[in-house]
Structure formats: structure tokens, C-alpha cells
């Protein structure tokens, strides 16, 4: 359940303890970008940075996700879904203009989706629109989407920055250069972009805030927003300390520095869509046996992983869906998830015929040692620390885990081969169809044995556009995946942001994006 993260109403007696080098303009906010967006034309990119910059500041969407993760009206004031769930007709809000004065109408919406579907663009967004067949303009305010079959993730997809609506006039005018000159209907418009250095945004004074999860119903408070490209975390922290950054996301190791400092406020977004989990290569014994997988699952100490990898700023995960994905079922996770119980794990292994006969602490069965290869990707301290906990947990029950880390580019393709036993994976997605993508047999790395029951439920869920009916189906899918112990969910890390103490209404939406128009600075 999403808890809206709101700034505590702490009134600082004075400004930041450390004096700022250059006193920032009070109506200019400065945020960090971890990398320069490669383009700001969403049709050309599926990158999270691009989606975030566009979706937070520049482009509005047809819908947003409310506190329950359900679609709420935004540029579309209402919609109708046909009985067969294959046709969705939106009615747009009247009188909205793009930053260049072009009216937002059905043509503009059609233009965007046609651009995604245009083979000449070879858009990376193509997989996201699923079985979309046609987008038709019924009148200036009504646009119809027709699918060849019901597409359940549609509304979740529409809420993402990748489907913010661009001004067709600007796209046609700028052509190949539109990616450097985005024009939307958002609360801010692009003032300038120094590639690799900063993006400067200026307030859209005519902005109408149509979202009911926003605090400020009118035009944005801050006059300017500067997005500084800072790739090094250490440099970003230094800029936060000196007051040059209004706020910055914190890595786990840095959080304690800011927790009790009255010069800063912490915003913790626990409604996240990432999941770290252990996968099994079911093509190799004994991982083809659900009982063996279950035993491993009971051996994993999630709390220890949360502490070691994220200094406590993460939540242990019992279920195969992250808590921030609509459809996550806490009751099912609790009832069917494998709770940490090493004694039970050992008991299950003994029942399966694994004994400590070798005397070196490693179990054996039929002459085979319980020694297995665990793969994962390098370059991330939290993955390494989680692996260390897993390795230790498995050693406690007599299983020896050999670790093999490589760059993602080498690691991910290597899982297609049949020469590994377990892998530690992390995936971020905002729709329950992630279960289908990853776990419908044969699985995203072709390592899963066929399971007709799971496959049938997953296929059914993806065809249910009605969120209530879909939620029931998704609960069932979670239950089946847990009963089969297809994976061992481990944790989801939180997003922790530190802001200067004089920042007010630092509001995050359901997807964890800032609502920038709300933010203001208290003198």
C-alpha cells in the first residue's frame, strides 16, 4: 500500500549549518541527474533517466497512478473500456496548450503513438504498447485505442514518462533535433541544455495542475529548476553539504550522515518497484525439485541482507512482486512465502536424502556434494553484500555456494547456458506483467521447466484489463509462484532522498517521481 511521503513540517530555526558558497536564488531549485539524458524525445528512448526527466518536468500524460496504484484522470478527464476490453476511448481535458501554444488534442495523442509504431523510427518503446493495432481520432477531444486482444498493462504504461505527450508541431519543426528541444504541457519547459553539464527548466506560468495527488493546484512555485549532471555520488553529497543541491538521493552508506542532521530532511520512498531475488536453473538437478528449492528459500535470512546491503533501508521481500507494483498481495506473501527458518531448511534437506556424511560440513546425496555455482553481476556493492549473506546462510545448512560475478553484459547472456545453478537478479518494473516476462515458462533465461498451471494463470492475468478482476488473478499467480518456489524473493531497496531543511512539500507520487510544482523554499 502506497504511503504518500510528505515532508515533515519541521521549521528550521536557521538555514543549513554549513554556510553556502554561492547563496542560491530562493526560487531556483537544483537537483542532481546521475547522467545526462541521451535524448529528450521519449519515442527514441526507454531509458529511466529520460523517462524521469520528461515525466517529472516537461510532459504530462493521459493518466497518473493514484495512492492505490490505480489510473486517475490527468490529460484524459475520462475514459470508456469496451465490453471485450479491446477498445479504450479517452476524452481529453479541454483547453490545454503545449509550451509552444499548440493545443493538446486527440491528434497530438495519436501523433505520439503513431510515432512509436512507425517502423521508420524503430522505437525502443514498441514492446510496451503490446497488441495496440490502431489509434483513431474521433473528434478533437476523443481518441480511441484499439487492441487485437485485451492488454492489461495499458494504463500502467500510459502513466510513465515514456508516454508523455509531445507537441506534434515541435516534433515536425525540429525533426532530428527534437530530442534536444522537447515541448510538452508540463509544469516546466526547457530553457536551455548544456549537454553533459546541466538542463535548465523554467516555470510554465499557464500550467493547470490536474492531478489530485498534488498539493499545489496552480502554476509551480519555483521559477527555475536546474538539473546538474553529477555522475559521482561523492561529488553529489559534497554539493548537498554545501547547499548547492536542493536535494539528492542517497546511497545506503551515506544515509546515516544525514539522518539526525537538523540541516536536512529525509524523504524515504518505500513504495518501490524493484526486487532482488534468487533464481534457480531448473534444468539442472536438484533444482528441478520444488522441495529442494523450498529448502533453500527457508535458509535465506532476508533481514541480514537488508542490514548488510542497504544498512536497513530496504524491506525484506517474501512475495515475487515488489510492494509498489499494483496487485502486490501482502497476505499471499505472508501465507505462502518461505520465512527464514534454517532448522526447517535442514529438516527438508534431510527428508530429501541429503546427509552430512563427508564430514567437511557440506551435505552429500548419492555421491554428489551440495556444492553449487551462484552467478550475479558485478559493479554494485549491494549485490556483493547480499551474495555474501546468501553464501553464509547456505553454508549454515551445509550447502557450499561458489560465487561468480561478471559485468551485466557478460552475466545476463551467460544464463542462457546450462552451466550454473542459481543466480542473484534484480529487476525493476511497474506492472504485474513482469511475472509473465520473467517467469512464464521457459522463463526469461529459458531456465524454467514447463508449469502449465502457472502459465495459464499468467496468460489469463495479462488479458484482464479490469484492475479489480486482474488483482484477484495476480494474487493467484503470486500464490502459485511461491508454492512452486520459482524464485526466492529477498528484498526491495527504498529510495532515500535528503533535502535541505528549508524545502517544503517535497511530494513524491506513486511512481516515486517528484511533483515539482509543489516544492517551495521557506525563508
Amino acid at each position, binding site marked *: 500500500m502506497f504511503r504518500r511521503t510528505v515532508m515533515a513540517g519541521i521549521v528550521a530555526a536557521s538555514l543549513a549549518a554549513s*554556510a553556502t*558558497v*554561492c547563496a542560491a536564488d530562493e526560487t531556483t531549485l*537544483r537537483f542532481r541527474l546521475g*547522467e*545526462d539524458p*541521451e*535524448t529528450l*524525445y521519449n519515442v*527514441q*528512448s*526507454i*531509458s*529511466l533517466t529520460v523517462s524521469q526527466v520528461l515525466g517529472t518536468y516537461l510532459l504530462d500524460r493521459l493518466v497518473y497512478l493514484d495512492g492505490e496504484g490505480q489510473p486517475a484522470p490527468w490529460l484524459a478527464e475520462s475514459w470508456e473500456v469496451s465490453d471485450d476490453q479491446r477498445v479504450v476511448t479517452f476524452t481529453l481535458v479541454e483547453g490545454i496548450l503545449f509550451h509552444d501554444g499548440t493545443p493538446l488534442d486527440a491528434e497530438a495523442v495519436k501523433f505520439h503513438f503513431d510515432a512509436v509504431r512507425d*517502423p521508420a523510427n*524503430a*522505437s*525502443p*518503446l*514498441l*514492446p*510496451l504498447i503490446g497488441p495496440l493495432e490502431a489509434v483513431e481520432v474521433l473528434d478533437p477531444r476523443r481518441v480511441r485505442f484499439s487492441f487485437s486482444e485485451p492488454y492489461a498493462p495499458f494504463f500502467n504504461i500510459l502513466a510513465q514518462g515514456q508516454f508523455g505527450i509531445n507537441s506534434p508541431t515541435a516534433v515536425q519543426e525540429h525533426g*532530428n533535433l527534437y*530530442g534536444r528541444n522537447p515541448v510538452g504541457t508540463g509544469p516546466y519547459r526547457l530553457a536551455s541544455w*548544456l*549537454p*553533459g*553539464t546541466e538542463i535548465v527548466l523554467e516555470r510554465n506560468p499557464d500550467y493547470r495542475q490536474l492531478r489530485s495527488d498534488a498539493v499545489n493546484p496552480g502554476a509551480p512555485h519555483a521559477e527555475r529548476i536546474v538539473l*546538474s*549532471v*553529477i*555522475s*559521482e555520488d*561523492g*561529488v553529489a553529497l*559534497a*554539493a548537498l*553539504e*554545501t547547499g*548547492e*543541491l536542493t536535494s539528492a538521493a542517497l546511497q545506503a552508506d551515506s544515509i546515516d550522515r544525514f539522518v539526525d542532521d537538523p540541516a536536512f530532511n529525509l524523504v524515504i520512498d518505500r513504495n518501490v518497484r524493484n526486487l532482488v531475488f534468487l533464481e534457480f536453473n531448473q534444468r539442472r538437478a536438484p533444482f528441478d525439485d520444488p522441495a529442494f528449492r523450498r529448502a533453500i528459500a527457508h535458509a535465506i535470512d532476508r533481514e541480514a541482507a537488508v542490514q548488510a546491503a542497504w544498512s536497513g533501508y530496504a524491506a525484506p521481500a517474501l512475495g515475487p512482486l515488489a510492494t509498489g507494483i499494483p496487485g502486490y498481495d501482502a497476505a499471499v506473501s505472508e501465507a505462502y512465502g518461505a520465512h527464514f527458518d534454517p532448522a526447517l531448511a535442514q529438516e527438508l534437506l534431510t527428508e530429501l536424502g541429503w546427509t552430512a556424511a563427508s564430514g567437511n560440513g557440506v551435505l552429500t546425496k548419492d555421491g554428489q556434494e551440495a556444492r553449487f555455482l551462484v552467478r550475479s553481476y558485478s559493479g554494485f556493492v549491494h549485490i556483493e553484500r547480499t551474495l555474501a549473506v546468501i553464501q553464509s546462510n547456505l553454508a549454515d545448512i551445509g550447502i557450499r555456494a561458489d560465487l561468480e560475478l561478471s559485468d*551485466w*553484459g*557478460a552475466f*545476463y*547472456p551467460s544464463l542462457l547456458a546450462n552451466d550454473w545453478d542459481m543466480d542473484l537478479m*534484480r*529487476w*525493476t*518494473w511497474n506492472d504485474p506483467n513482469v511475472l509473465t*516476462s*520473467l517467469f512464464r515458462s521457459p522463463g*526469461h533465461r529459458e531456465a524454467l521447466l514447463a508449469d502449465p498451471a502457472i502459465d495459464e494463470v499468467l496468460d489469463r492475468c495479462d488479458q484482464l484489463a479490469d484492475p479489480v478482476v486482474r488483482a484477484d488473478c495476480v494474487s493467484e499467480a503470486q500464490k502459485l509462484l511461491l508454492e512452486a518456489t520459482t524464485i526466492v524473493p529477498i528484498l526491495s531497496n527504498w529510495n532515500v532522498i535528503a533535502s535541505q531543511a528549508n524545502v517544503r512539500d517535497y511530494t513524491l507520487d506513486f511512481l516515486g517521481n517528484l511533483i515539482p510544482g509543489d516544492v517551495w523554499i521557506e525563508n
Partner: protein
Amino acid sequence: MSTYILRRLLLLVPVILGILFVTFLIKALIPTDAVTALYEGQVTERDAAEAIAAIRAKYNLDRPWHEQFALYVLNAAQGDLGESVRTRRPVLDEIGFRYLNTLKLTFAALAISIVIGVLTGILAAYKRDTWLDVTAMTVSLFGISMPAFFFGLVLILVFSVWLQWLPVIPQGPLALLLPALTLGLIEAAPLARITRSGMIEVLSSDYIRAARAKGVGETTILFAHALPNALLAVVTIIGLQIGSLLGGAFIIEVVFGWPGIGELAVKAIQWRDFVITQAVILVGAGTYVLVNLLVDILYTWIDPRIDYQSS
């Protein structure tokens, strides 16, 4: 001399072709490419199969590698270094302004390293075996051992966070100061040691003793008589340092967020975007070769006895 220069410039062509060939070969051996990298950790390759095929076809990435190589060479000869799958823009547009930024950083750092390194070396040689000499050489040893990445972060901590003399996110020309200082100081270290060695050798020559006996001032002896003769070794090191500076610039650009080709190259490697990576390698290699040619020409100016033509 002009024949010599022309010959050296023409030699650039096989060097570039060789580099291109090797990078294409490496690309062919790597299992993933820029297109699959687009979807990492978000959409599975199975779900994105149609889009992946379409993007590969658009950028000719579905052709055999020797065909891609031939196409690339033909286009490169006409000044077209391709379009990036990520940015969807011509690579030359991406690299153009960034290359200038890297040159700015490299030459600013070079200027700092020459001024500080050579002056320190001269002083250390002149005050040989004094506390000044020992201090200078100890500090230079520290500089040689110090990783550029770490030194950059230390300077930010000292000047921006503790002393607050400079902002962490500087604007305008000030943005070049810390990055150039970081790189320049590190590169000054070996330069100081080489200058000191060269100067010590020259200062013990007969003609220097004769100049002193004739009553010539020490400053004139140091800068007008000794230094020019010690310069040949120093200039050789400077020439070699360009390569080191370019490489160091890449690291410094990432630390300070300086928008040069180094920062782009790091991103391109993460993206597995070989079009950008190749272009950066080409530009880097071409720069290094051209700078070395300039250094060789500089030799003839320093020592007119050097004549490449006859060799």
C-alpha cells in the same frame, strides 16, 4: 621537412585502419550489443525481440561484421562516423563540442604541469641536496603515486567543502579550474623529476662553468643557457605525457562531470555503444599521433642540428 611531415601524416591512415579493424573484431566477440543494452533489467529480450530486430536493421547491426566494417570505413572516409543507437544523433555531433572540451582540459592541465613541473625541477636542480630539493622530490613522488580519481575527490573536499573557496558545481570558466589543477599537478610530478635530472647534468657542463666565470647572472645561466639544453629530454616527456593526459582527462572528466569525450566514452562503454566508442578511440589515437608529430617538429626548433630529412 615538409616531405617528412607529409610522410608522417600519411602514416596516420594505416594506423587508423588498424585501430578500426581491431575494435570491430572486439565488437564481434562480445555477446551483447548496444541494442540489448537498451533493455537491461527492464524488458526481457524475449518481449523486446521485435523492437530489437527493428533497431538492429535500422543501424545495419544485423549484417555480418566484415560488411559492417566495410560500410563503416566507406562512410568514415566521407566524414560520416555513424549514428548512435542511444542518442539517435550523428556521432560527430556528440563528439564535436566534447572534443574541444577535452582539448581545453588537456592543454590547461599541460600548461599547469609544464609551469609547475619545469619550475620545480629547475629550482630543485639549482638548490640540489637542500631541504627544498628533498621536499620537491618527495612531493613529486607523492604525485606520481596518487590516483587521479582520488586526488580529484580530495581537492573537491578541501577546496569546496572545507575551505569553500570554490563551489562544488562551478559555472563558466571556473569549472575548468579544479579539473585542470588535479590533472596538471599529477602530471607535473614526473616532469619535475625529469627537469631536475636534465638540469643537474647540464649545470655541471664546462660552458656553464665558463659562463659563471665570465660573471653571467644566475637567472640568465638557468633560463638562457642551461634550460634550452635540458629541454630536449623534457619535451620528449611532455610528448609522451599527452597520451597520459588524455587518458587521465577521461577519469577527471567523470569525477568533475567535465563534458568531454572521456566522459562520453565511459558512458558509451556502459551502453555498449560501439559507434561512439570507435569514434572516441579514433579521435584519441589521431590526436596522440598528431601531437607527437608536433613534438618532433618542436625538436628541430629547439636543436637545429636535428634534421629528419637526411635520416
